C-alpha cells in the first residue's frame, strides 16, 4: 500500500482528512494496484457485494410488511404478494436473490480453489470467507422458515433436530432452540430476529475480508507474487471498476431472468401450503444450494456420524490452506491438481443431484461413493499431491507470458526454487 502519503488537494479536504482520513481510504480504494491479468472469474467479489446489498435492501422493505407470528406469517407473505405495491417484485428479488447469492459464492469459492487463492499469505481472507459462507447458510435457512409454509416448517424441524444428535445435551439444546416442544411461534420470532441480524454481521465480515485482501493484494491467474505497483498492475479505478461493472450487468440479466420469467422454479410448491405440524410433506428437500451437504448427511447410516460428516464437509474448507501442501498456487502450472480439481467439481455436482433424489437404492450408493471421494480429495489427495506432483515452470512475472510467449525456462526455474 503506497498511498499513505496521500494529501487532498482542497483546503477543506485537508482539514477533514487530518481529522478523519476517509479521503485517504477512498484514494487507497481507487488507486489500489490490481494484477492486470485478472480474468472474469475475479469479478464475483463485486457481484457478491451487490448480492448482499440487494438482500439487505429488499429484506428491509419486506420486513415493513411481514408479520412474524405463526398465525399470520403465511398470510402476510400472501398479502405482500397480492396487495402490497410491487410486493411481488420485492419478494421475488429477495427469494431468488438468495439463490443468486449462492450461485455467485460457489463460483467465487471454486475460483479460489482453482487458482490457489487460499494459500499463504491469504489464509485469513479465506477463513473469513468460510465464516461468511456459514453465516450465509444460516441466514438462508432461517429466511426460508419465515413464510411459514410446509417446507419452512418441516425444513426447520429437520435442521434443528440435527442438534439432537449431540449426546446427552442434544434434546435440551433442541428444546432451547425451539423455545417449546416443537417448532412453533417462539421459533419463528427468534428466526426472524436472527435472519435480520446476520446480514449485518456478514457486512462487517465483508469489510474484514476486503481489508485482509488489500494487505497482500489480489492473487491472479498465474498465481505468482507481483510487485505493487508495477508494470504488472493497473489501478482499481477505472480498469477493474469497468470490468466488474460489465460482469455485474451480465449477472443481472441472469438474475432478472429468474425474477421475471421463472420466479418459483428454484422453490418448492409445498411452501405455498401453510405449515401443518400434523402432516410431513412426502419429500423434504432443502434449497438447491444446500443439497451437496444434505446428500452427505443422508449417506451416513448413523445419526450422529451423519451430522458430524456434514459439518466436517464444510469445516474442512477452513483448514484447506494447510491440507494443500503444494507451494504452487495456480492450477495452470499443476497438471495433476487441475484434473483432480475438475473431478471435485463433478463430485460436488453429483452430491447435489443425489441430495435432491430419494435416499435409497442406487442414489444412496452414489451418494456414499461421492461423500467418500469428497473427503479423500481434501484429506489424502491434496496433501500427497504437493509432494508427488511435477509442476510446470512458472513465469517470473505476469508480463512475461504475454510478451515473451512461452515462459523463460532458465528464469522460471530460478524463480520457482526461490518460492520453494
Amino acid at each position: 500500500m503506497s498511498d499513505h502519503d496521500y494529501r487532498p488537494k482542497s483546503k477543506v479536504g485537508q482539514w477533514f482528512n487530518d481529522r478523519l482520513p476517509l479521503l485517504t481510504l477512498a484514494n487507497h480504494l481507487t488507486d489500489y494496484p490490481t494484477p492486470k491479468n485478472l480474468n472474469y472469474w475475479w469479478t464475483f467479489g463485486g457481484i457478491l457485494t451487490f448480492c448482499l446489498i440487494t438482500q439487505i435492501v429488499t429484506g428491509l422493505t419486506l420486513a415493513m410488511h411481514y408479520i412474524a407470528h405463526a398465525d399470520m406469517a403465511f398470510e402476510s407473505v400472501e398479502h405482500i404478494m397480492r396487495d402490497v405495491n410491487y410486493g411481488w417484485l420485492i419478494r421475488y428479488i429477495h427469494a431468488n436473490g438468495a439463490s443468486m447469492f449462492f450461485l455467485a459464492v460457489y463460483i467465487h469459492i471454486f475460483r479460489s480453489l482453482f487458482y490457489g487463492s487460499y494459500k499463504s499469505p491469504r489464509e485469513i481472507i479465506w477463513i473469513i470467507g468460510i465464516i461468511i459462507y456459514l453465516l450465509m447458510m444460516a441466514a438462508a435457512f432461517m429466511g426460508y422458515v419465515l413464510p411459514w409454509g410446509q417446507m419452512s416448517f418441516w425444513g426447520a424441524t429437520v435442521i434443528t433436530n440435527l442438534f439432537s444428535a449431540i449426546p446427552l445435551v442434544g434434546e435440551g439444546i433442541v428444546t432451547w432452540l425451539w423455545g417449546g416442544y416443537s417448532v412453533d411461534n417462539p421459533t419463528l420470532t427468534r428466526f426472524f430476529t436472527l435472519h435480520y441480524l446476520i446480514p449485518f454481521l456478514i457486512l462487517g465480515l465483508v469489510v474484514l475480508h476486503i481489508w485482509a485482501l488489500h494487505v497482500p493484494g489480489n492473487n491472479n491467474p498465474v498465481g505468482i507474487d507481483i510487485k505493487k505497483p508495477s508494470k504488472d498492475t493497473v489501478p482499481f479505478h477505472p480498469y477493474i471498476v469497468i470490468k466488474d461493472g460489465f460482469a455485474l450487468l451480465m449477472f443481472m440479466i441472469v438474475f432478472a431472468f429468474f425474477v421475471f420469467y421463472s420466479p418459483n422454479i428454484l422453490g418448492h410448491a409445498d411452501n405455498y401450503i401453510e405449515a401443518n405440524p400434523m402432516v410431513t410433506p412426502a419429500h423434504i428437500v432443502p434449497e438447491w444450494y444446500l443439497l451437496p451437504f444434505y446428500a452427505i448427511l443422508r449417506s451416513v447410516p448413523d445419526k450422529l456420524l451423519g451430522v458430524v460428516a456434514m459439518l466436517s464437509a464444510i469445516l474442512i474448507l477452513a483448514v484447506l490452506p494447510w491440507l494443500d501442501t503444494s507451494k504452487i498456487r495456480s492450477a495452470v502450472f499443476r497438471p495433476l491438481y487441475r484434473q483432480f480439481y475438475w473431478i471435485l467439481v463433478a463430485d460436488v455436482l453429483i452430491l447435489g443431484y443425489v441430495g435432491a433424489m430419494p435416499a435409497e437404492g442406487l442414489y444412496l450408493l452414489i451418494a456414499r461413493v461421492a461423500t467418500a471421494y469428497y473427503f479423500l480429495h481434501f484429506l489424502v489427495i491434496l496433501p500427497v499431491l504437493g509432494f508427488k506432483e511435477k509442476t510446470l515452470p512458472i513465469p517470473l512475472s505476469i508480463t512475461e507470458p504475454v510478451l515473451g510467449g512461452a515462459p523463460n525456462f532458465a528464469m522460471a526455474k530460478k524463480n520457482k526454487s526461490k518460492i520453494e
Partner: protein
Amino acid sequence: MSEKKTNRRDFLFTATTAVGAVGAAAVVWPMVDQMNPDASVKALASTEVDVSSLKPGNTLTVLWRGKPVFIRRRTKEEIDEARSVKLEDLIHPEKDEDRVKKPEWLVMLGVCTHLGCVPLNDKGDYDGWFCPCHGSHYDTSGRIRKGPAPWNMEIPKYEFVNANTIKIG
C-alpha cells in the same frame, strides 16, 4: 527479578477478574434462559382425547405440545405381529408389553426419532409406519426396524381416564 513473588496487586487482579466473570455469567444466563420454553408453553402440558369413535385398525392423530400423537386401536394381527418379534432383531430392544398399557391401544409420539418428521400410517416394510423424510421403517409397536432413526418412537405419559378417554401428559 529471578523469583516471582505473589503480592497484593496479583491478588487484586485475580479477585477482580473472578468477580467480573461471575457478574458476566449472571447477566448472560437470563439472556440464554429466555429462549427456553416459557410459562405459557409449559402450561399446555396435557390433552384429553375421546377415543370412542375409533375402530380397530385405525389411527387418530392429535396435537399435544405442538407435536402429533398417534393413538392406534390395533387389530389382533397387529398385536400378535408386534409380540412375535424376537428382542435380538430389534435396533432399540423394547418389549411390546412395555410400550402399551392396554394391548389394543398404542399411544405414542408421532415423531420420527431421526430428524423429527411425522411418519405415515400403514406404510413401510413392517406394517407399521414409514418416515418419508429419510426412510425409517417402524413396526406395529412403533419400534424402529430399518433406516437411520436411532430409537423407537417415544411413548408419552398418558392414562385412561375412563374407557373412552385418554389423557396425554
